[in-house]
């Protein structure tokens, strides 16, 4: 009973109106210096809460440079992207506000991270660990969060009805409006957001434009603000530049190892795999050596990449010592995982194996990707075009095919190129034919042939044809072997 009372009193204290609570770090001793501020972080907790909660993050270029609190600081986009990828582990709704800020919608993540307070602390902690110093704030609208962060108020405002009060004392500068507009507002004595919000709407719109009014509406949440979301990098890219030149493949592999581990981590966080990995080995004054690893199915394990790269590198002769190693991935693919069997196929009475991508990858790593292929049927009447090389696809269910009895007999073997036969056709006995196959005007490879099944002196059945065009030459095209 006593416990319940205590719990309810805590809830009351927490939910109490205008209750300001100092934000406490869970591990104060681990907290490094830069973000310790004179004013405590404040949580404004209220009865009703807005449907959205936006965190604005304003990264700083470097701690050494002193920038006035409310100045807009231009940071390079690489830094923003880095912070965005960190923010990506807290929410999927990250939006860039160029040139200086990042906006995160975190309402949906409160429960997972144990509330707004704890989420903010963890977000700041991971930014700090990545060496990014930033100003931040949380508000129900993106623009308000941005304004608060620019003004240096590191607060958490969850309710929309408290917003106007928090924003009121802020200078107009935080809205990043055109200087002329700010100057004209200043001339009429409007220097804070509160003063601007108190102006009559119609007159405000007439004097300063609909856009300015819309910005104020968006600031307070009266008008929605749709935002374009940031999409994290979909390719892996890493490089390594050892201080000296690498002469042996084994050394290259050794330096590849950390990159591959990074790649695995990158793929694992995205639950994705890649089927294309590009390695570039830069030399001193030669074009780089390129190794493209194509996999039969999406993979993510560093071990597998290393094994295949080792196979490929062993086939490769380095033209010069390697100065720099670059690793890039192809597009990411959703990973489909399945359990492996305990026994190898056939071993200990284990089940028969399945067609596996590992075989194709191993063969291709050594022989090249063009040397390993599947077959497919092409709806074409010209014999040499009626088949095609196909990518061997793992796990493709074999569709029952209805073989048409209409089709005339075709040889099991086709020659790469038709082979010219002596015109006398010595020793050949025509068994069946002719079968006329012609035209192909649409792609310039026109044919006009009469095909015959013949038997040569060794007794093998062969597929020959005679050109219908003047020299009427005979060719061997297939073997019924």
């Amino acid at each position, binding site marked *: 009973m006593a416990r319940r009372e205590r719990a309810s009193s805590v809830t009351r204290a927490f939910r109490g109106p205008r209750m300001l609570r100092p934000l406490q770090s869970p591990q104060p001793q681990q907290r490094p210096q830069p973000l310790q501020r004179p004013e405590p972080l404040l949580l404004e907790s209220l009865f009703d809460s807005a449907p959205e909660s936006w965190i604005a993050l304003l990264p700083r270029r470097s701690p050494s440079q002193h920038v006035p609190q409310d100045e807009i600081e231009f940071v390079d986009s690489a830094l923003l992207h880095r912070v965005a990828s960190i923010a990506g582990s807290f929410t999927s709704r990250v939006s860039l506000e160029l040139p200086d800020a990042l906006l995160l919608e975190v309402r949906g993540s409160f429960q997972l991270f144990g509330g707004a307070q704890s989420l903010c602390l963890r977000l700041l902690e991971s930014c700090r660990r990545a060496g990014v110093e930033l100003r931040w704030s949380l508000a129900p609208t993106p623009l308000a969060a941005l304004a608060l962060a620019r003004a240096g108020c590191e607060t958490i405002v969850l309710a929309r009805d408290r917003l106007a009060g928090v924003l009121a004392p802020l200078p107009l500068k935080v809205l990043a409006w055109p200087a002329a507009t700010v100057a004209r507002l200043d001339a009429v004595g409007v220097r804070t957001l509160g003063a601007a919000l108190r102006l009559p709407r119609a007159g405000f719109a007439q004097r300063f434009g609909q856009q300015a009014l819309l910005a104020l509406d968006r600031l307070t949440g009266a008008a929605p603000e749709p935002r374009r979301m940031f999409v994290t990098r979909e390719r892996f890219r890493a490089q390594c530049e050892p201080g000296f030149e690498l002469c042996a493949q084994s050394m290259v592999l050794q330096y590849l190892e950390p990159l591959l581990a990074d790649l695995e981590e990158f793929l694992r966080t995205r639950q994705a795999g890649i089927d294309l990995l590009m390695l570039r080995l830069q030399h001193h004054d030669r074009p780089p050596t390129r190794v493209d690893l194509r996999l039969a199915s999406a993979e993510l394990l560093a071990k597998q990449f290393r094994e295949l790269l080792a196979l490929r590198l062993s086939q490769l002769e380095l033209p010069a010592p390697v100065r720099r190693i670059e690793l890039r991935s192809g597009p990411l693919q959703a990973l489909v995982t399945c359990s492996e069997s305990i026994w190898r*196929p*056939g071993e200990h009475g284990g089940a*028969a*194996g*399945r*067609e*596996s991508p*590992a*075989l*194709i990858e*191993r*063969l291709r790593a*050594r*022989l090249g990707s*063009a*040397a*390993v*292929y*599947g*077959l*497919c*049927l092409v709806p074409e*009447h010209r*014999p040499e075009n*009626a*088949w*095609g090389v*196909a990518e*061997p696809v793992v796990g*493709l269910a*074999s569709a029952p095919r209805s*073989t048409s*009895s209409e*089709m*005339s*007999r*075709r*040889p*099991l*073997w*086709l*020659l790469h190129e038709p082979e010219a036969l002596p015109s006398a056709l010595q020793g050949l006995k025509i068994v069946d*034919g*002719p*079968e*006329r*196959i*012609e*035209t192909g*005007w*649409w792609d310039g490879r026109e044919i006009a042939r009469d095909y015959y*099944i013949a*038997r040569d002196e060794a*007794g*093998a*059945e062969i597929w020959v044809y005679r050109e219908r065009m003047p020299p009427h030459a005979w060719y061997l095209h*297939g*073997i*019924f*072997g």
Partner: protein
Amino acid sequence: MGQVPPDSPSEPTLERLLEHPAIWRGRSTARTATLGTGCRRLDEALPGGGWPAAGLTEILTARSGLGELRLLIPLLATLGCESPARWAAWISPPFEPYAPALIAAGVPLERQLVVRTADPAWAIEQALDSGGCAIVLAWFVAVATAHTRKAAPLGALRRLQLATQRSHVPAFLFRPLDAAAQSSPAELRLVFEPSLEGGRLQLLKSRGGERRPLEILWREWSAPNRSEPQPGESTRDIHGKT
């Protein structure tokens, strides 16, 4: 042991022992697991009633394309229908396997895997050990013509024979006729010669198979969808769409 009749106590046990696949007694047929060939007379001629299910089979021909591939088409069609889908690996074939003919013979195209390599032995071993192949067909021209190192083919073949037994996957090697003089660790070796409407098979090495040459005719093969030339329709014009 309770079922053994008292008058012949040791006989059935010995019989049972001798049934073990690793034991092969002189003239008797080896009890190995086999795969049906699709031809009843060939099944009867081969030890165990078919192609060895785990082991190396060598098919020797004067040259490629005499009809030796047809011997295996029914097997390819059967294996193509089995349930965990596995590849049929074609390693360094002499020509291009022609997709329309394979389809017409009932061989599923999506399970065929063609590998072009100058070192078939390595590729065969990879295919066998991967567990992803149901059957491996290989054309061993490179090894047969390696006159420089005579011991190499035998060593390679021995490795392959062990690999097939390890993985329980049949491997078929197509080799030229002059390989008949060399010894081989293969489970089954046979020479194929074409004849009118069929072929002549001579077993060179087998565990208790027929020694007499065997004449087979293509029409007695129960392969699915075997299309014979139709006498009625001699000329067929195929025109492209205009």
